[in-house]
């Protein structure tokens, strides 16, 4: 019983930010879904515009829907938002010279860790051999 109640509560929470946009094709609907999940709400900052209830998020959702209906693709709409709000509006930062560190660092750390690991293993092997 409690589980059902909880499920109902969560369902009601998730539908609160949905507004109705009619798209002619399934592709447009998917574009809308992906874009609104990919664009950041600038007022709440830690939510995308799909999840946010803020007034600006709603305006931006409407804008995205309008642009999709005009036939613009995801790339064009993302550019449209970046021109106005900067890279911060995107959840995935673009790969550029000043952001390259952000993208490469995890792999770099992983590589260094792997090298240290291999060196240690080799050294241990040598030690056990010599003993």
């Amino acid at each position, binding site marked *: 019983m409690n589980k059902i109640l909880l499920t109902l509560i969560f369902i009601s929470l998730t539908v609160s930010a949905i507004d109705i946009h009619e798209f002619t094709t399934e592709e447009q609907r998917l574009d809308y879904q992906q874009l609104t999940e990919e664009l950041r709400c*600038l*007022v709440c900052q830690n939510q995308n515009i799909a999840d946010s209830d803020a007034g*600006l998020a709603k*305006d931006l959702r409407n804008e995205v829907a309008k642009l999709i209906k005009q036939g613009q693709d995801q790339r064009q709409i993302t550019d449209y938002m*970046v*021109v*106005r*709000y900067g890279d911060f509006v995107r959840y995935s930062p673009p790969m550029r010279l000043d952001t390259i560190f952000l993208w490469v660092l995890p792999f770099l750390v992983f590589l260094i860790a792997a090298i240290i690991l291999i060196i240690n293993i080799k050294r241990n092997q040598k030690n056990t051999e010599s003993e």
Partner: protein
Amino acid sequence: MNKKNIIKALLPLIIFLSLVILLYNGLGKNTRLLPSALINKPVPEFSVPSLMNGQTINNDSLIGQMYLLNVWASWCPNCRVEHPMITEFARQKIIPVYGLNYKDENAAANQWLNQFGNPYKDILVDIEGLVGIDFGVYGAPETFLIDAKGIIRHKIVGELNPQNLKNEILPLIEKYK
């Protein structure tokens, strides 16, 4: 060998300290202040009615003078806070101040102006917030400094106050005059 061991022993501390420095720098930063993507870019195209006389104002009709564009609304409490500052700045007649009435209702906006006074040379009406989106507005108040060629030179997010007026707006007015 001894020296090597010391370095090895200190390594975690060094990593820890560099993390502390890195994270400490981020502390106290106001993450709500976002850099505007439109600095040094031309004012976006718009064509909207004036709140004061209903005539159409567009981006070209404001070219030829440096001005402040103050984004405000009657529903915005911080706009009321900064209103005396805007009024005082407009009174000094250094450059004109235009208003962008953002996502407001005309009746409410007019009532607000009657109550607190109208410092604006003219007011652009943006009921839908679409001009606001083109300007990259994400809250009110925001204030743009726009030069005589129609290039956006600065943006203040939040209230105009004596500090940002003196340190940001006035030097830039001198620079781009």
